[in-house]
Each structure stands twice: as C-alpha cells, then as structure tokens.
C-alpha cells in the first residue's frame, strides 16, 4: 500500500524492514510482499535496499532487481512530496487524459516518470484506478481529481505549492 512518502535511508528504516522480514513465517515466495513493505518504508527501492533484501532473503540481487523492474508498482526513483498520477486507462484516454498528462509535463517541466528538482512533485501515469465515471482522473497522493477539475492543471499545482509553503 502506498504510505506516506519518506525518502531516507537511515538505519531505523532498515530496522523496520528487518523486523517485518523476521516476522514472516517463511521468506519463500514472499519477495513481492517484502518489496511492497520496503517501498512503503523507504518511499522507493534504491540499490542499497535491494541488496539488503537479497541478503536477507538469500537470493541473488539480480533476482530482486528482476522482480523490481518487472512490476510497474515498484520504483527505483524517489517520488516527490506530492506524487501526481494521471490515469491513462481506456475510459480516461477517450476523455482526454493524454492532454492532461501533457499539461502536467509542460507545467512542471518534467517527463512522466520524473521528479522535479526541488523534490516537490513527481509525475507518473497509471492504468485505471477504476473510477471511470470521473474520467479523466488525476490522483495526487490520496486526493482524487476528476472530470473538469482534473483539467485545471495550473490550479492544481498552485494549490499544492501553497499547501507546501504554508507548511
């Protein structure tokens, strides 16, 4: 599950991950659930975390990397404080999601899959959140923007910049 975004490789995070792994009955077949946990702790899955997991589960790092790179849910790049996901499922596509994504790219001056230099925003597309009645849909962390609201890209970005500056 996507938890709050934390980007820190400090030892308490590794301890948290270790205690999760220790609590498992067996690590056999549990690599994906361990990675889910790790991503919720660290916010992403950098090399150091993958190596650590490989040691703990006793598999080659290549296998861990193979799994991480296979699934779109896992990311090796830190996400921004506000993670923007533009749904590009079919229903959203026919209702103009590509233009919404393009507007975000232009407005933030990053490509989909990237994070702004200040670490405030990251942008991604995802395939169908299942809220097709609201198409096109944009998710920002846990906030949902649908229909006409999703198209107000400038306003959305300004809103979060304001929230951020107000702390």
């Amino acid at each position: 599950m996507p938890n709050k975004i934390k980007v820190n490789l400090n030892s308490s995070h590794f301890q948290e991950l270790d205690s999760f792994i220790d609590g498992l009955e067996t690590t056999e077949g549990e690599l994906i659930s361990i990675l889910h946990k790790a991503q919720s702790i660290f916010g992403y899955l950098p090399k150091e975390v993958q190596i650590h997991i490989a040691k703990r589960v006793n598999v080659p790092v290549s296998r861990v990397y193979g799994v991480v790179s296979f699934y779109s849910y896992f990311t090796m790049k830190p996400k921004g404080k506000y993670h923007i996901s533009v749904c590009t499922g079919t229903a959203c596509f026919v209702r103009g999601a590509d233009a919404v994504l393009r507007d975000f790219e232009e407005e933030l001056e990053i490509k989909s899959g990237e994070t702004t230099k200040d670490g405030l925003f990251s942008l991604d597309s995802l395939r169908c959140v299942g809220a097709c009645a609201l198409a096109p849909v944009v998710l920002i962390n846990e906030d949902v923007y649908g229909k006409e609201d999703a198209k107000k890209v400038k306003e959305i970005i300004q809103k979060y910049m304001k929230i951020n500056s107000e702390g």
Partner: protein
Amino acid sequence: MVNRQQLLEKYEAEKNRILNRSGDIALGKKEILVCAGTGCMSSKSLKIIENLEKAIKDNGLDIDVHGTGCFGFCGKGPIVKIMPDDTFYSEVSVDDAEKIVSHLAKNEIYEEKLFINPDTKVRATTTNEIPFYNKQVRLALKNCGFVNAESIDDYIGAKGYQALALALEKSPQEIIDIIKESGIRGRGGGGFSTGLKWEFAFKNKADQKYVVCNADEGDPGAFMDRSILEGDPHSVIEAMAICGYAIGASEGYVYIRAEYPVAYDRLVKAIKAAREEGLLGKNILGSSLDFDILIKFGAGAFVCGEETALISSMEGKRGEPTSKPPFPAEKGFWKKPTNVNNVETLANIPQIILNGADWFSKIGTEKSSGTKVFALAGKINNVGLVEVPMGTTLREVIYDIGGGIVDGKKFKAVQTGGPSGGCLTEEDLDTPIDFDSLIQKGSMMGSGGMIVMDEDDCMVSVAKFFLEFTEEESCGKCTPCRIGTKRLLEVLVEITEGRGNMKHIEELRRLCTVIKETSLCGLGQSAPNPILSTLEKFENEYIEHIKKKKCRAHSCNDLIQYLIDVNECVGCTACKKVCPTSCISGEVKKIHSINQENCIKCGACKSTCRFNAIVVR
C-alpha cells in the same frame, strides 16, 4: 458458529432487518444506504455518511446509515438511497446530508436530488423508475449496493453462507456436477467452463491443493471485480470455501491489485469476520472442511491476469507465463493442483448452489448462461456498472441502459474485451452479447470492459493506444509478443504521424497473424485484436491517414492544422494573446493568421475564440 443450525439461527435473527430493507416486510424502520465504492468515495461519500449520522443524531432520529458497495450508476454518484422506500438520490453533495435527514424527519422526499429522467424530464422517486436499472438483472451484483459491505451480519441476513452449509451436505462430485450443469463459464476473459475446471483440479490427487481468486483486474476501464470485492466480499469468500470443499483444497489465496486499497481493506475485514464466526478455519460448520484464505498483492503487471503468470507472481517471482500444459489444475501454485477463478465467476457460485443449476442455466443464452457485468465507460451518458443477462444486445446496453452517447453525438464503435478485444460498430448493435457471438464478430467478452467511442475518436489512434498498452505490458519472455508488439506500435506511430505508406497495411496484417499464432500466452495471442478489428471495420480511416494525410476525428496532431476562418475572424487578438508559441499574427480588427511552422496544435486559440473563427482541418 459450529454447525449449520447455528448459522440458520443467526439468519433468523438477522433476516427481518434485511427483509425490511428490501421492503418485503414492514417493520416501520428506515435505513439510509450510501455508496462507499471507490467512485463515490472519490466524490466524498464517506463525508456524506458522517454528515448524515450527525444530522440523524441532531434530529433525534433512529435511522441506521450503511456504507454499501457500488450501486452501479457511477456517473450520477455519489448515490444515497432511503430504504425501504427505495428513494434514489443522485449527485448528492456533503451539504445535502442535512436536508435529506430533515426531509426524512418530516416523512418527505427531498425532490431536488431525485434523478431526472432525461427523456421525460420527470423526477424518478424510486430506483425502478430509472431507465438505467430497467433491463438489468443483478446476480453477481445482487448484494452490491444493498448490504453493508463491512457487516457479516448483513450478509448472513441475506442468506449468506447458506450455500456453503448446503454444499457441505453434498459430495464434492455433486457440487462439481451442479456447477457443470449450470453452464457457468469463466468471467475473467477466457470463457472456459468453470465446472470442468473444478473437476480437473478435483481429479488430480495431491497432498495439498489451492483455490485462487484472480482479482488482478488489469483491463484498463474495467472495474467489476473491484466493485464486487468492495461491495460484497463475503460472496467471494463463501464461493472460495465451496470450491475448496469441492476440489479438496484447504488453502485459498486472493491475488489482488495493489491499486485497489479499498477492496483490499474490505476483504481483510471480511476474512477476519468470517474467521471469527468459524466460517473460515478448522472444521467449518461442523464438517470435515478446513479452509482459510490469505491475500497476495500484485504489483502492477497486466500479464498477471493470465493464470500461469499470476501463479509465478504469487510465488514472489516475475509474473511470466509458462506454456500449458501442464495446466494449473495439474501443476499450479508450488507445483500443486490449483484452481484459479475470477472474482465475478466466484460471486455467482453461492447463488447457483442455493437456487440450482437449472435456475441458472435458464438465464442467458444456451451456450452462455447467466449474466455478465459490464463496466460501461467512455463517451456514454450513464457511466457505470451494469449487469445484464447474456444475450442482451449492445443496443440495449448502450442506449436503453447507457442512455446513449454524450452530447448527442454519433455512436462510432464500442470496444469490448479491453486490449485483448476488438471494436464493434453500428452494424453489430443488435448482436446478442455472449461469449461466442463476440468472438465471431472479431472481439471478445474479456473481463467486461465496454468503452464507447463517438465520432471524435480516431480508430487508428485507438488501436495505437491499445498497442502502447500491450507493448508496455508484454513480459518479454517470448519473442513474437516482445518484438512483435513493438513493431506493430512503430507502424501505427508512422501512420498517425503522417509517414505511413500503403505497404504498412499489409505489414500490419501479416505481423498480427504471426503474433496471434506464435505467442506463448493470451496477452500476445490477443494483442493484435484491436488492430485487426479496426482494420476490418475502419480500413478507410487507415487509408485516409496514409494517402490523404488526414485524420477525420482531428485527433492525430500531426495530421491536423489550425486555421483562421477569414469570414468569421473579427481581429479581437484574443487568440494571439493565448498562443504559447506566438505563432499567430495580426493587427487589431484585422484578420489574423497562424504560422503553421511554429504551431504546436495545443488548441488554446480554438478554446479562446468566441467567434468560432478557428477551424481544424
């Protein structure tokens, strides 16, 4: 609960409450149902529940508020229903809660939020008066939008777990025979006989077997499985236990997408509640059945909807498919016999056991019995979840239930089966929908996504959209799919960007055939379908893109031009001011012009112009 008797006692204790809700008996007690599915929750339905509860308290009323699963009419959400009156409020806002309650206190209807029939302009007071529901038959969605999704008591009061109790009094072979005779086929896409699947798993002897529920709903635009898990998780749990008994498995797994947090939460709560009631665990209802369910997370890979890939993923590996045979019924999860069924298929099972194979087989068509849930989306007025008997025509679904095309535009095509399916056109509208008729028409049932497209949709772009999806989701294990989908996409990009030639069409057809015939799994075998079906039905559009460099839907940016209509332009300079590349020139009160070289076709000028002087060609 240690035996069937206790289950029936619990049912007796709960049933009147549920029968009162459905209006079958009158206890004089009112209840409020609020949709707490993902769609309505995104429009703050949880806040509506909170406000309703507060208003009820303030008014000193004795009314229960229940968060339920999806009512289906997502396009008009959030939805609130007053039971047993069946008053249907649509597009309710958080501020309406108080008014709904104050009207309820006076035994009045809050007219303002009633659904207005777009044809007759009459306000519908009850669900039955809404055309969207008229032709629907809800079996898999029976409890969705009716029971409290987080209450096992509600489910038991609605005859929940009685199918399991009944099944435990029969032999496994008897259960399998019922499922076989009902004629139910897999709702996840393949359409294979569920009964036969169970029988294979039953006949393979092993010390351990597994039941797996495939909730990796990956078809973009389909959300029926999510809605069932959110609205009626116990029906899936009950069905899995019945399957466990029938095939001889003591462990079940639900493989669920990580993108469905609400469905996951409800499922976890439901499993916990079922364990507490002794409906999962050891010696269920005093029988010899031991059965428990665990959850496995997917991590975002479309190919994991394919059962062998799903099993690899459950084992913590890359979700790559393997060749069949061996089928999972022989060697599945941890190489043990495994039965994989989709969520919607499972949701039908308890009712088949309760009402009999004969009852089920009479619904739908001869070779496709029962109903099918469709996620209706795209350019349609009534976006939502609909369940109709097999054999209903597309026209009924799109016009009678779906309310036709948005803004009165012209229907162009409907895509069924998602990225594995194809498109159907005007001439297919009267085709009865079932597994076989759709395949015959070059599409497929798939999991039930139904995306409606209008005249503004370019069919070459639509094919490209689906190929972008399959190319990205191809797992890379087999060459035809890995390289083939990439080549197909490249050709489509050439065509949509104005570099196509007529040889491309033959190339597409040949490549499609090779990929279909030689790919390892269903993903690759069906990936060419969107191209083949658009080529068959809209070849003229492909040719237009290639020969005339024209996109009639004005959706391929490289093939369109923004021009100024000299007869309409008044020289107001509004377009000039908004143009991000400053490619519009012209003096005040003089006709403007667009420099095509710098135009990025963003459309800002067109949406700004108040005189309709910007035309797209």
